[in-house]
């Protein structure tokens, strides 16, 4: 009886593991959760791999004979069983447990002091660049839509800083109140969430939103400033309004 069960497990486990991975990957793509995990370049690969895994698991079931599968020997039996569980459980658990955004403690672990100037920032898209140009040449009181990274990019050019300093801007990001000062954070993702790095601008003024650090998306409207300390420019927004907002479609910025 146990031998028969062991044979069944050993035959069906590969198909179960591959179809579970395929289903988890497919669900991650179709639910949009993949936007919180991988940069756009890799997303279609996951979709193709998910479908191939589902096909492979069907092929495994049809092409091979369950009755001819050898019965695993009893000392190694448990090891094989655990092996399949290790392939099955962690990925399913991680897909259920992974949160929508990286938390404040990871932010502190991955944040670097005074290095923002060295990171090549994801630049403004052509469309938003046009919006910015239009907004800049229109009513100066109208807030210009920018990303956190755009303000850091601007802070590298004296000419652009001059054009932008004192302008009203509107931007979204995650609020971070660690260490006595407030920052608006946007994560930059190169390949996947494991290599994501935070980029931030300082917030000056009332930032009390009563929200949780690192995980609450906020929309900030205020005045762009580029104060310089010991020759190092730190972009800053003097806050007019700050309010909780929806997570953007692309929570990370990718180059």
């Amino acid at each position, binding site marked *: 009886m146990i031998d028969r069960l062991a044979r069944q*497990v*050993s035959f069906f*486990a*590969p198909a179960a593991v*591959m179809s579970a*991975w395929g289903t988890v*990957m497919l669900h991650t793509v179709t639910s949009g959760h993949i936007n919180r995990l*991988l940069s756009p370049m*890799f997303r279609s*690969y*996951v979709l193709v*791999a998910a479908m*191939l*895994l589902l096909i*492979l698991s069907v*092929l*495994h079931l049809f*092409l*091979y*004979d369950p009755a*001819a*599968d*050898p019965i*695993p020997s009893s000392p*190694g039996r448990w*090891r*094989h069983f655990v*092996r399949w569980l*290790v*392939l099955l459980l*962690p*990925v399913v*658990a*991680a897909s259920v447990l*992974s*949160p929508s955004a*990286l938390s404040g*403690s*990871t932010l*502190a*672990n*991955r*944040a*670097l*002091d*005074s*290095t*923002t100037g*060295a*990171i*090549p920032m994801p630049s403004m898209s052509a469309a938003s660049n046009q919006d910015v140009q239009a907004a800049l040449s229109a009513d100066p009181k109208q807030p210009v839509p920018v990303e956190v990274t755009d303000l850091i990019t601007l802070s590298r050019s004296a000419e652009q800083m001059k054009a932008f300093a004192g302008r009203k801007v509107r931007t979204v990001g995650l609020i971070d109140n*660690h260490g*006595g000062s407030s920052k608006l954070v946007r994560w930059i993702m*190169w*390949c*996947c969430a*494991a*290599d994501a*790095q935070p980029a931030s601008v300082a917030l000056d003024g009332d930032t009390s939103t009563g929200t949780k650090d690192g995980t609450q998306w906020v929309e900030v409207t205020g005045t762009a400033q580029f104060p310089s300390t010991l020759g190092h420019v730190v972009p800053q927004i003097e806050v007019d309004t700050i309010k909780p907002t929806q997570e953007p479609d692309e929570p990370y910025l990718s*180059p």
Partner: protein
Amino acid sequence: MFFAAFDLPTASASAGLSWPDVALSFFAIVLEGTPFLLLGAIVSGLVDVFLPAGLIKDWLPRSKTQGVFAALGAGVIFPLCECGALPIVQRLIRKGVPPAVAATYMLAAPALNPLAMFSTFLAFRNQDPWLMVVLRFSFSLVVLIVLGLWLARLRPDQMLRAETLVGSTRKNLELSQNPGLVQIPRPGWSLGGLQQFTGAVVRDFTGVLLFLVIGAAVAALFSTGFNRNLLAPIGQNVILGPLAGILLAQLLCLCSTTDAFIIAAFAPFSVSAKIAFLVAGPLIDLKLYWLYRSAFPARFVHGLWIRALAATFLLTLLYSLKP
């Protein structure tokens, strides 16, 4: 408790380890790696069905040392990422490619890959990009030659897990890396090529996937819980700087096309610390350790680890000490 030690006492924030973030990072790493692993397994399946055993061996130079240099050249010309390389390398060994040559290619493909050099140029475009590209490529090449010459002196049984040599069949079930997986064709279904191909893909994919899962878990733990600023105070030190670069590469486990962007931003590190990071990381780290273990025995991987890191350290130390 363990990860409390990772918090920098002087850091402004009281960081810690967030387990949900570890789950997020783990999930992201396996999702990123799985398509490449599957692609590697599919190529391995095609090689199994279509490439006659010994054909590549006939193309390769007779001497193992020359073969190692051919593998280094192949590493530049045929870029391959770490996850995709493992099933193919194991299959090539079974098809008669000397293990030293296959292992040299496995190490060289991510390290000397033109994409990695291009991303290094982009990442350092504001900080002397040509110097970084030239140092990264030349130091990686020197370390790989050292490793390749060492590999050429080893016997296959010193390098390989038993099952990598023989593969998994009914006869050597106990040796098999994937012991629960011996696929016997259904009676009356004579789809020889498709059955052989599917069997090879399923075995190779699930065989290496286990090690990707373990490696990704370790990588997620450290890339999330380790406070990078902890290494900042020693990053400019002549001797400790390169060590800090190597240590950070071991813990963060980044792919060779991404690592330059992360380290370019790390101002506390000297050039030699950054180069140590960029040379050591693609050769071995805590994730690759587990991936290599899918094909090679622990003793060999430990030897490889020590030699790769020692050679990287010596080279970057020499650069660090230059007047």
